[in-house]
């Protein structure tokens, strides 16, 4: 019988609790804002023996993930977590974890990448790693942070997946926002997440293996192909595990979530904490008679192409909010995926860049987007097919925000 207790936790607290419930035995984390409380709380749990684990103090994120990989290969769950430039510093090692099929689950607290220096929420850090061979989950609220981490372990460690997973939570909006969270008890989690065993590659002096050896062109493609197959299988296995989770814990999740989409004239595709604001704004606009809907992408890697295309079938106008700039591309990373998922030329997909570097994505921003999309449907838009990305919340004086004194 599950025994959950309702606790007030912020996103970092929920992430820490989930790692503890997963019984991680080695932790190597390097603190970085806004992830620091995860690294700190885990160390407190280790010192107070509330979590029986070894805490390795490391000098960088590059080492943090390297240690976690080595530890996990000995047959334990190893934990680390990071943000922003910390994730960037892990870049090389991310590929080692995924290529060697080490199913580490890592909370990523989304924060903008440099420059300009920023401590605040933006998805560019995780988006820069979207092809690193990690599964990517994006969370809307603190409950999802807790639940998605537990679910991610079950998926990542599945014998057909064996792929590490990032569980992304928006910096500050989730990491530092305190919300009520149903926290499962250890026994129920133990039943959902049996003790970890290295089923594929492992480090064992009695059965030696040389892992990550030089691989010739004869086999490289094949090993990448093995990863590709895992990502394809994940599209089936993720919903299976989510259903299994719902059976035990009563909370149902999916690859994506549709809110009021069935009869919607326009649909807005969102990801992360902005989804809550978007759904709230959609409800308000529906009360005023506007048929608008919202899709929240929960799993970005693998991208749920078929599910999204099914939901958007027949829609004339779709909007996408990208919380990363996608510089030089035809649109932001989320827009590119949505656009490519819709073969129907009748669907026009518009990209909105918003919420960069910690800017709040407000009801007003969402309402402006919906209003614009509705005008496009009704052809009231002066330039309804204007190509390009709309930076919806950028100040009009963007090109002159800094003025300096001329010293000549």
């Amino acid at each position, binding site marked *: 019988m599950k025994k959950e207790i309702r606790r007030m936790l912020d996103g970092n607290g929920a992430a820490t609790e989930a790692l503890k419930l997963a019984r991680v035995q080695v932790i190597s984390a390097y603190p970085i804002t806004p992830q620091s409380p995860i690294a700190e709380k885990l160390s407190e749990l280790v010192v107070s023996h509330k979590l029986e684990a070894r805490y390795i103090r490391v000098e960088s994120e590059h080492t943090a993930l390297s240690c976690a990989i080595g530890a996990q290969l000995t047959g334990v769950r190893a934990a680390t977590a990071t943000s922003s430039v910390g994730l960037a510093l892990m870049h090389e090692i991310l590929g080692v974890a995924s*290529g060697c*099929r080490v199913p580490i689950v890592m909370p990523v607290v989304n924060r903008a990448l440099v420059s300009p220096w920023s401590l605040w929420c933006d998805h560019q850090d995780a988006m820069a790693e979207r092809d690193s061979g990690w599964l990517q989950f994006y969370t809307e609220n603190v409950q999802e942070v807790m639940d998605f981490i537990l679910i991610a372990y079950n998926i990542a460690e599945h014998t057909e997946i*064996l792929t590490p997973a990032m569980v992304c939570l928006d910096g500050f909006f989730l990491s530092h926002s305190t919300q009520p969270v149903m926290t499962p008890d250890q026994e129920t989690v133990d039943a959902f997440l049996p003790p970890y065993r290295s089923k594929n*590659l492992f480090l064992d002096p009695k059965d*030696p293996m*040389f892992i990550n*050896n*030089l691989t010739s062109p004869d086999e490289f493609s094949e090993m990448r192909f*093995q990863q590709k197959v895992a990502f394809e299988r994940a599209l089936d296995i993720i919903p299976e595990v989510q259903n299994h989770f719902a059976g035990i814990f009563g909370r149902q999740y999916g690859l994506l979530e549709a809110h009021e989409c069935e009869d919607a004239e326009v649909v807005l595709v969102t990801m992360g904490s902005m989804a809550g604001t978007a759904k709230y704004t959609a409800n308000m606009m529906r009360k005023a008679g506007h048929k608008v809907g919202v899709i929240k992408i929960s799993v970005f890697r693998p991208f749920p192409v078929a599910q999204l295309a099914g939901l958007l079938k027949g829609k004339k106008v779709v909007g996408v909010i990208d919380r990363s700039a996608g510089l030089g591309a035809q649109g932001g990373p989320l827009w590119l995926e949505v656009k490519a998922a819709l073969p129907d030329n009748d669907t026009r997909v518009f990209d909105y860049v918003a919420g960069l570097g910690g800017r709040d994505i407000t009801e007003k921003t969402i309402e402006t987007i919906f209003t614009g999309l509705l005008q496009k449907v009704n052809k009231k838009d002066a330039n309804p097919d204007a190509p390009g990305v709309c930076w919806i919340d950028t100040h009009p004086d963007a090109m002159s925000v800094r003025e300096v004194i001329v010293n000549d």
Partner: protein
Amino acid sequence: MPGQPEKHMNKPGKNNKTRTVYGPVATVFASVNTGSWRILRPGPDHSRCAGCGQCETFCPTGVIEIIDDPAKEGGRGKVVEIDWAYCKGCGICADVCPKKCIRMVEEKKGNENEERN
């Protein structure tokens, strides 16, 4: 360039069983003769060596051993022994030696270098 040093499992184990694994791994080992990389080689002055073991600790290839030398200090003396097949000549031992008794000398060529293989 040395050949690929490790091979993926190409012969079945004792009980003829195999299993499929994903990702890069080798289970048949053959080490590269890293000794062939040497341009300089460590030349320890055994008479000044204190046997402290710093070089043994820091050698990245783990090829130094501190051994007893019965001919030194009435049998209590220690000297360093280096496995020339794998010493790659990096010079770290010379750097860390507190007695500064390891000097990097030019690698000898031909049959003068009888220990090289």
